[in-house]
């Protein structure tokens, strides 16, 4: 062992010996390229599982899995109409580990869409978007969009019926914006129908362009988390110690708080003799190695284990080869767009354009409206916040079926079948629900004088509606998009 480590080459590779004290570990964290994305010391609150549920890390791990499996899959896949589907069959029947590779890639992709969404929900409900993190929230929304696009572009590649018709439906939703919609669709597809050029475009976007964009945005996203002092935590924690969670008190008492080895100044840029980020409360911090690094490794393994187990149990779907003259009935978009497809079935303009645009803009503007930092890092902010979220959730879940029922009986299309499209656009479940959401959020704000509560009502309603419409689109819509029961 000594022979291996005590030579010039080893020392050139690892500048520091394996650390055996907290100070050494922190110095290693600081000087190692891969580790220095993590802080040398981390607040005990950030280590509590319930603080984040590890959702950001899970998303990142899934992305790593997707890159590794994706690169391996690329060796066995040619994006051409002649080859794509046959390559899927070969992956299944011929390529060593082809089945597990494809399954892991598929389920990790779905998992990442879900994890990124849940991460956003966590960040909202713990109020982690407040200044100075406003723009990181916007970046997060963009990353969510890129994740959806990555999944969507990958959806076409197997070139089976599921892929073909999901993309046909998905891209036709993209064509609903007036004036530019049709151009967007043609730009995406490289033609009027899903064909060879669409397959190539989706492939290039999927394996080169979108991953690159995602990596750059994610790097900025992580960097900003570090610069803003790590995971958002309650401001009060600077004054009061953490109760429960994190390392045990015996471990915490063993910690060592180092003074700076060398002091330096960044003249005119940073005050004091060492650059500091966020709120400094060294009393409650523990060395990242091992407390944070081991937790990261465990989450990494946990994701791998769950993903492999799921890939053993469930095979990624592969239907018959894409057949442009034989549409599936119903033809459904990928599940995360089924909510939008459901809205589109009421009104293409409102459901496919206005509501998604308003929702995205609304989401991005949340941190610019709700700027009060007093309850950051606390789930739901306060008991009142929790109550508001529950009420908003229950109301949304109840109001949507009621609206759908009313629409099926007294909707514009029932009462006045000949009425111009304008009236359907004006009055349909999607537009009514959006109005209700906006109004109740506004009223909550006016009544309680709390922007946080207003945002809570609006965001909870948005998440609930997204979930409810996705469930409806997935399980309750049959041929010709008529209402069916899941067991039918």
């Amino acid at each position, binding site marked *: 062992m000594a022979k291996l480590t005590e030579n010039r080459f080893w020392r050139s590779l690892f500048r520091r010996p394996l650390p055996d004290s907290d100070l050494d570990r922190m110095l290693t964290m600081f000087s190692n390229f891969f580790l220095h994305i993590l802080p040398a010391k981390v607040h005990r609150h950030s280590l509590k599982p319930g603080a984040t549920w590890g959702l950001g890390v899970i998303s990142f791990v899934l992305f790593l899995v997707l890159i590794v499996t994706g690169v391996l899959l690329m060796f066995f896949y040619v994006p051409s*109409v*002649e080859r794509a589907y*046959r390559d899927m*069959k*070969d992956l*299944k*029947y*011929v390529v*060593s*580990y082809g*089945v*597990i590779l494809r399954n892991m890639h598929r389920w990790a992709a779905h998992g990442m869409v879900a994890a990124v969404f849940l991460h956003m929900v966590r960040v909202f409900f713990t109020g982690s978007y407040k200044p100075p993190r406003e723009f990181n929230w916007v970046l997060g929304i963009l990353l969510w969009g890129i994740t959806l696009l990555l999944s969507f572009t990958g959806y076409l590649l197997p070139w089976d*019926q599921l892929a073909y018709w999901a993309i*046909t439906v998905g891209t036709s939703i993209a064509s609903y914006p007036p004036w530019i919609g049709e151009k967007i669709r043609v730009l995406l597809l490289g033609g*009027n*129908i899903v*064909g060879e050029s669409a397959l190539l475009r989706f492939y290039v976007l999927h394996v080169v362009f979108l991953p690159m964009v995602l990596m750059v945005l994610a790097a900025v996203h992580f960097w900003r988390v570090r610069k803003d002092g790590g995971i958002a935590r309650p401001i009060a924690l600077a004054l009061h110690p953490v109760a429960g969670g994190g*390392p*045990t008190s015996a*471990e915490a008492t063993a910690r060592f708080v180092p003074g700076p080895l060398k002091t330096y100044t960044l003249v005119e840029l940073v005050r004091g003799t060492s650059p500091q980020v966020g709120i400094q409360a060294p009393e409650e911090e523990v060395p990242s190695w*091992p*407390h944070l690094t*081991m*937790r990261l*490794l*465990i989450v990494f*393994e*946990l994701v*791998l*284990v769950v993903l*492999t*187990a799921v890939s*053993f149990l469930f095979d990624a779907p592969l*239907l*018959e080869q894409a057949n*442009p*003259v034989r*549409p*599936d*009935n*119903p033809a459904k978009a990928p599940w995360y767009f089924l909510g939008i497809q459901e809205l589109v079935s009421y009104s293409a303009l409102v459901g496919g354009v206005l509501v998604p645009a308003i929702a995205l803009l609304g989401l991005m503007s949340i941190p610019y409206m709700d700027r009060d930092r007093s309850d950051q890092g606390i789930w739901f902010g306060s008991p009142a916040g929790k109550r508001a979220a529950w009420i908003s959730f229950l109301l949304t879940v109840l109001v949507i079926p009621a609206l759908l029922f009313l629409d099926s009986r007294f909707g514009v299309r029932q009462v006045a079948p000949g009425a111009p499209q304008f009236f359907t656009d004006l009055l349909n479940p999607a537009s009514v629900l959006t109005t209700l959401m906006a109004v109740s959020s506004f009223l909550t704000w006016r009544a309680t004088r709390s922007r946080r509560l207003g945002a809570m009502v609006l965001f909870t309603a948005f998440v609930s509606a997204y979930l409810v419409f996705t469930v409806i689109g997935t399980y309750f819509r*049959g*041929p*010709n998009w*008529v209402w*069916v029961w899941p067991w*039918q």
Partner: protein
Amino acid sequence: MLRIYRLFALMSLITLALFLLSLWKDSNREWKKYQDEYRNLLIAKAKDADQRRAAENVGYEFAQVSVAEGARVDRCIMCHRAVEDPRFVDAPQPLRAHPKIPSHPFERFGCTGCHGGDGSATEVQAAHQGIQKKEGAVLPDGRIVYLTEREEPLLPGNLVQASCGSCHLTEDPGKIGAPVLSRGKTLFQEKGCIGCHRVGRIGGKVGPELTFAGEKRSDPEWLLKHFRDPESLVPDSAMPSYKNLGEEELQALTAFVLSLREVPFTLIASAPLQPQTVVALTPPPVPREAHWEAPRNENLRPNPVPASAESVANGKKLYGKYCAGCHGESGKGDGPGAPKDLKPEPANFADPRMMAHEREGGLYWKITRGRGLMPGWEATIPQKDRWDLVNFLRTLPPKVQMPPGMMEQPHGAMGGEKEPAGHMEESRPGGH
């Protein structure tokens, strides 16, 4: 030691276990079981020590027949190891030897070209059963039905003769060793199927056209069930039940319907083809100058505009404006605008035989492109209006019922519609 190190150690063990499990699962492929059986049988059949030693040395092998320049691969021989070994004529499946079919060697024709099934699969269920597909429909009364059907399953027993008919179009199936197919063809004529169904250029319009029925429905179980009880599979079907026919006759009819298909490019054997096969694939003589054919993918383009009264009325208006000059007020091709001895002469839309042959996509394409003195109307008449014109043209021929038994060549019309085999893969019809 810290609690967290213990947790990490435990998780690492689980991760490692799953990794090893995935190695095992991937190596434990279904076909290896059959290759083991093959080796054991070889050892049992060995006549001397040398043969025995050779048999014992037979290892796992990945094998496939590549057909039509690799456009199709058949991996059936992964399990059916002994198809060409005469010692295995009496062996149980999957190890039985295949009888020799004259001039159809395996290495050129593969297996699925005749037998159907998914040749790329190396698992029994997938290879033999094809893919189950489910299609939903809403009936006029609001009921929802889901129809299931298999895509390209194996053709069991005598139904494999359907494949003979797909290539040997002009030959009498009875004379090429396909008696069941021959019986099916005869039954199809005798039972008057042509009264309702069009095959090629001939037949009624009550039922769906069957020219490519074997392509649309490749599941023999579906077809058999449909003969017995059409309404159970096609709700509100007007077709009578044929369950009074015997099992054998229904099988024969199924074989014939399955044979009605355009031979896909990937089912054609690797070159060189035998002379008689070439003859069979040559289109029957059609007078070329009299016959203007749209490309296949254009022909198959579905009409997006329903033939509503408004559509037909609009088509009629446009017809009077742009077409009647040459094609005549009543569509007989006798308009005053055309030069006296124009060749080719303006089409006669009132000719039921000609119009029965025309597909809507083809008519649309011809209106769009034009030929000779007939201008293309792409720039003049908007897309939707051209489809309205097509809908109007459809109303011009008088409705006539073809007498049964007129089908001398069920595939006659296909000849003209065929493109060279190499183009078929490229022509992906659009328009939906």
